[in-house]
């Protein structure tokens, strides 16, 4: 663990600011620990968050390290093609707003499976939904953990695996503590604080870059193109995805997974249960769209700013490569202190996201598998929450070990894979069960397992895992090549396949529609009659002002 020669900033500053964040959030989490007695408290924060609070927390949950560091870096190196990601990530929220959020809030209780299994056979459907939830959450978790390990090289000024392993372990332990002590309420507050810090940090840097350019976006773009080795091409689509017809189709495949994946991400769906009503769920999404949209506009400026203020050579030479563009830009603008703040924000980002993923995965196991399948719904709430806590510890340990093992891997694709699996395995079943009366158990199982398996199999046999030149695949030895699927992204095949299988399974099954259950689900989803209530009085500002769409 020798000090890296190309360290920027002072590690002591970075560590102190991060430690401050940890102390403050832990204090808040401990304050809320006493309010964690029932299952509704632990899983859904008592359903007492306002739409605005939940909208900010959703932004905190959604704007992962991939969003902040990844997109800014992708724009800094590839220009316009990096911007395409953020558009997919944003437009996706309209699916959640129009088709999913409110109906899900009214129908379910704690997990995605509550909705999927509402009128179908409990055991098999809940099991399938839980498997899919755990898969998506673990992929996402692993990507965040390895991201944390990679970040430490740049930010703490150390090279060498011991420090990286230690950082991954610290992130994992903190995540377990947040979830165990704070439950959903504590996790939500961590996400709210992180979202505020992240957006403020990005706003500060954005206005700094724009200010230097006389608030002229055209001149930012011009300077960026002039500084880039690819010149004007970075302002146009196609640097990364326009090379061949295959890369173009790959891009369309990615675009499908991004826009359809968000409304199938279990940790996003679970956040809708933390508000008292469908109206507040609607407010949540509106706030989230406003915050996330503005944030992605910031990353556009940050990316192009880093392109000329830092430069592609420096970014590529830094330990974190593409992920280091935003921190390097912070150092360029505001020196050691701003770098320290942005570094701490980046760690906070990872912590808040992994805590949200952990609580989702543990809720799914305890509520769907343990209580509903193993105990046939007879487990006491305290028993169920105890299992959820144990699961959170197990998942935390798995994430630590997995993160350490995978830290040298190219794992950026794991987030894209999580989106592809969510779009294939979860979204078709969610939409069918909400909107198609005839949909039945076989349709749900075929769609979930078909989407899940096809997405994973296609990834395993894609160039992402083997066959790319120059260490670009997961298996770095280029003589090992077993890929036969030409695309990096499976969505263009697996998403339509899952929709098709959901239809095929339904029409070939003789299971009769449970009219009463369907009526209950439909009435409940649209009117909120019989929906789960808040366990504590809602906050005073029940009628939140609408966020002003920017």
């Amino acid at each position: 663990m020798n000090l890296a020669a190309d360290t920027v900033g002072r590690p002591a500053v970075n560590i102190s600011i991060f430690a401050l964040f940890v102390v403050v959030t832990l204090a808040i989490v401990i304050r809320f620990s006493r309010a964690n007695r029932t299952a509704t408290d632990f899983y859904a924060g008592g359903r007492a968050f306002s739409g605005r609070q939940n909208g900010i927390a959703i932004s905190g949950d959604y704007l992962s390290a991939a969003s902040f560091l990844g997109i800014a870096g992708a724009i800094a190196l590839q220009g316009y093609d990096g911007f395409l990601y953020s558009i997919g990530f944003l437009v996706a929220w309209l699916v959640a707003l129009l088709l999913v959020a409110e109906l899900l809030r009214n129908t379910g209780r704690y997990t995605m499976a509550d909705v999927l299994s509402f009128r179908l056979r409990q055991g098999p459907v809940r099991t399938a939904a839980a498997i899919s939830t755990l898969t998506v959450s673990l992929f996402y978790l692993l990507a965040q953990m390895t991201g944390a390990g990679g970040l430490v090289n740049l930010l703490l000024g150390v090279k060498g695996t011991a420090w990286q392993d230690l950082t991954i372990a610290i992130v994992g332990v903190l995540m377990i503590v947040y979830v165990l002590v704070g439950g959903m309420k504590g996790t939500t507050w961590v996400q709210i604080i992180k979202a505020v810090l992240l957006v403020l940090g990005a706003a500060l840097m954005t206005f700094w870059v724009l200010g230097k350019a006389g608030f002229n976006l055209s001149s930012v773009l011009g300077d960026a193109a002039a500084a880039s080795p690819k010149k004007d091409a970075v302002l146009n689509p196609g640097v990364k995805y326009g090379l061949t017809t295959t890369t173009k189709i790959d891009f369309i495949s990615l675009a499908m997974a991004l826009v359809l994946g968000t409304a199938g991400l279990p940790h996003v769906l679970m956040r809708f249960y933390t508000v008292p009503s469908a109206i507040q769920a609607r407010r949540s999404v509106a706030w989230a769209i406003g915050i996330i949209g503005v944030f992605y506009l910031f990353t556009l400026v940050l990316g192009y700013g880093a392109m000329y203020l830092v430069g592609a050579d420096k970014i590529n030479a830094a330990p974190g490569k593409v992920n280091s563009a935003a921190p390097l830009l912070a150092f360029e603008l505001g020196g050691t202190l701003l770098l320290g703040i942005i570094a701490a924000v980046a760690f906070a980002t990872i912590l808040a996201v992994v805590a949200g993923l952990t609580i989702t995965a543990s809720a799914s196991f305890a509520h769907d598998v343990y209580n509903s399948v193993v105990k046939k719904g007879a487990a006491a709430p305290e028993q169920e929450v105890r299992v959820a806590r144990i699961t959170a510890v197990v998942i935390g340990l798995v994430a630590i070990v997995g993160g350490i093992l995978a830290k040298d891997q190219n794992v950026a694709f794991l987030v894209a894979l999580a989106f592809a699996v969510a779009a294939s395995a979860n979204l078709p079943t969610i939409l069918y069960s909400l909107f198609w009366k005839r949909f039945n158990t076989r349709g749900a199982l075929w769609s979930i397992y078909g989407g899940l398996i096809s997405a994973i199999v296609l990834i395993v046999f894609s160039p992402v895992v083997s066959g790319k030149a120059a260490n670009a695949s997961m298996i770095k030895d280029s003589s090992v090549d077993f890929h036969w699927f030409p695309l990096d992204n499976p969505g263009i095949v697996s998403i339509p396949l899952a929709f098709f299988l959901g239809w095929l399974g339904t029409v070939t099954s003789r299971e009769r529609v449970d009219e009463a259950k369907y009526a209950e689900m439909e009435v409940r989803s649209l009117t909120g009659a019989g929906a789960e209530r808040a366990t504590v009085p809602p906050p005073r500002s029940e009628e939140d002002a609408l966020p002003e769409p920017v």
Partner: protein
Amino acid sequence: MSTIQSSPGEAAPGASASGPESYLDLQRSPEFGELRRGFRRFVFPMTALFLAWYFLYVLLAAFASSFMSHKVGGNINVGLLFGLGQFLSTFVITAVYVRWADRRLDPAASALRARFEGTQLEGTQAGGEAR
């Protein structure tokens, strides 16, 4: 196939068809039919619209690079305007939906909920989670 069971541990109050107005009665009422029709008439075309607009953008970015690269002023090109247009359309659709839902969806939905819960209270004592 009599394996369809009501969800264990999830049983909502008043789910049975006995006693006061059942979910089935309410679902078959003309008022509910109108609510459902109104909701679907708004969200389905809107979803089709934004998905078509999004995929138009994606296809143009992939296959019409020279069109997207056309500069319209300074270093601002068509592609950037299209991209920012996606942001704008997302914000506008959000605002339009929230406004519509607040004005049209909520009054109808809460009237039906009040009616349903009112008849439930006359019969068995209903509630959310009894805690």
